[in-house]
C-alpha cells in the first residue's frame, strides 16, 4: 500500500559518483524490488522517481545519481533533513524465475541490491562508464563488473532469466539478446501514480503510462523509449 510521509534522512554516503541516501522508514512499505518512490527534491516543484536500492531494518535506501537540479538537491541532503516520500509505486520484477541473472548499467544498479536480497542471492553483472562509477558495485557483493569500453551485453551468458535495469541503449541490447528479460525503464515522471500522463512510452504497441504498467516491463512488450536523465535538465 503506497502512502506519503515526511521522512528524516538518517545517512547520506558517497558511493563512487553516486550518493546512497538513507531515510527512516516510518510507516512506509518497502514494496517489491523494482518498485519506486517519489522523493521530494528540496527547492524543486516536482518530486523525483527513484527505485528502492536497499531496505535495511527501519530504513529505506536510495542510490542517487546527480544528473540535474533535483537529484543534485537530493545528494546535498544530510542527516536530520526531512523530505516527503511517496510509495511504493508501480510494478516490480516478477520473482518466479528459474535461473535469475541481474544485469545493471550505471545508475541502473539501483534496484538490484534489494532484488538480490529478495531472490536470496543471484548472480549479477554490472557495467559502468568509469572505475569511479564502478565503486557502486560494492552494493552488490559478488557481482561481475565490467567497465567501458566493455559492455554488459558482451558478458551475458545464455540460459539465464535476465532481470535488468540501465540506460535505454543497454536495455535495447539486452532485449535483443534475451527476449524474455524483465527490463526496468526510466521516463520523465511528474507524479508516479498515473495522474500526469507524462511518462507515456510505447508498450504493447501504444503509448501507455510507465508508472502504471511498469517500470518493470517484459522485453517483449516494449520497443520504444525516449528517456531523459531528469525531468529538468
Amino acid at each position: 500500500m503506497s502512502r506519503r510521509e515526511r521522512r528524516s534522512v538518517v545517512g547520506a554516503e558517497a558511493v563512487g559518483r553516486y550518493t546512497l541516501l538513507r531515510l527512516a522508514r516510518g510507516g512506509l512499505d518497502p514494496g517489491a524490488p523494482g518498485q519506486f518512490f517519489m522523493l521530494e527534491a528540496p527547492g524543486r516543484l516536482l518530486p523525483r522517481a527513484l527505485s528502492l536500492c536497499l531496505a535495511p531494518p527501519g530504513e529505506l535506501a536510495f542510490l542517487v545519481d546527480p544528473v540535474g537540479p533535483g537529484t543534485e538537491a537530493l545528494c546535498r541532503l544530510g542527516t536530520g533533513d526531512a523530505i516527503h516520500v511517496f510509495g511504493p509505486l508501480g510494478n516490480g520484477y516478477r520473482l518466479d524465475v528459474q535461473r535469475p541473472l541481474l544485469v545493471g548499467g550505471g545508475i541502473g544498479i539501483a534496484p538490484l541490491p534489494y532484488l538480490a536480497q529478495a531472490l536470496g542471492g543471484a548472480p549479477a553483472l554490472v557495467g559502468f562508464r568509469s572505475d569511479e562509477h564502478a565503486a557502486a558495485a560494492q552494493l552488490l557483493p559478488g557481482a561481475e563488473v565490467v567497465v567501458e569500453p566493455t559492455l554488459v551485453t558482451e558478458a551475458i551468458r545464455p540460459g539465464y532469466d535476465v532481470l535488468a535495469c540501465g540506460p535505454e541503449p543497454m536495455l535495447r541490447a539486452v532485449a535483443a539478446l534475451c527476449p524474455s528479460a524483465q527490463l526496468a525503464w526510466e521516463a520523465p515522471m511528474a507524479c508516479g501514480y498515473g495522474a500526469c500522463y507524462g511518462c507515456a512510452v510505447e508498450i504493447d504497441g501504444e503509448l501507455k503510462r510507465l508508472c502504471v504498467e511498469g517500470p518493470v516491463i517484459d522485453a517483449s512488450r516494449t520497443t520504444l523509449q525516449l528517456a531523459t536523465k531528469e525531468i529538468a535538465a
Partner: protein
Amino acid sequence: MMLLNASGCLDALVAPDVARQLDAFVTKTITPLPREGNAPPRIAETAHGMLNAIGLANPGRDVFLRQTLPRLAETLDIPIWVSVGGFSARDYAETCAGLDGSDAAVIELNLSCPNVDEAADGAAEIVAACREATAIPLYAKLSAAHPDVGAVALAVAEAGADGLSLINTLRGTALDPRTLQPVLARTTGGLSGPALKPIALAVVHSCYAATGLPIVGMGGVTTGQDALELIACGARDVALGTVLFSDPDAPARVRAELAEAAERAAVASPDDVFARAHDVEKLPHTRRKVTA
C-alpha cells in the same frame, strides 16, 4: 465552495483515494475519436512551474461513454464533471448529446488546450451548439492567453454557458541548457504550477466582473491561502492541478489550510470572502442587472 481537480491532473480509476478527497471529479478531456497523445518527452520542470504536452490522450467518446464513465460512477460517490474537447462546434455538440442522460453532472467544455494543432471554432459558437445538444450544466474553460478574456467570458455567457473554468495552462517552451534544443518533443507545452497564480487571479477577477457567472478557479493553487484568494477574486469553487502531482494528499491538506486561512481573514467560512476583491459598485454585471 467545492474542491475539484483540474482536468487531466488525476485518474480517478487509478487513484480513487485521491479523487474521494474531492467534492467533484473532473475527467480528462474526451474527444470524438481516441487520441494516443503526443510523442514523449511530454513534460519538463521549469522555474516555478512545469510544462506538459500530453495532447489530450483519451480513449475517445464511444469507449468513454460505454466503459469509462460507468466505471467512474461505480467507483466514486461524488459528482462527475466530464471535460469535452473537439475540433469543431459539431464535435463538441455531438459529445454533449451523447452525455445527455448519463452520469455526467456537469460538462466542462475545454476551449483552451494549448497542446493540439487543430483550430477550434469560436468559443461562443461552440457553447451555443452544445447548449442546444444537452440540458446538462455547461462550464466553459477559457484560455488566459486571450487579450480580452472578459469579453470571451461574456460571449460564452450569452451563448448559454452556466459557468466558467479559469484558467487553462499557457503555452511555453523549455530548452535543454546544454544542447539548447527543446526538452519537449512537441517544442511547446502548457505551463502550469505556481507561476500561473497571479494570472489566474487576474482572469477570475475580470471574468467574474464581466459575467457574474459561477467560476471554478484554478491555476497554481498550492495552499489553502491560494484557494481563498481565488474565492476573493470571484471563484465559487476551486480546482487543484499540478499540486496533485507532488502531493496526492493535497485535497485534504488544502481544505484544512483553507479553514485556517479563513480564520486568519476573520471569517467563519471561505465562502464569506467571495468576491471580496471587487468593488461591488463597479461590477458591470451587477450594474446590468440593476438597470434591466
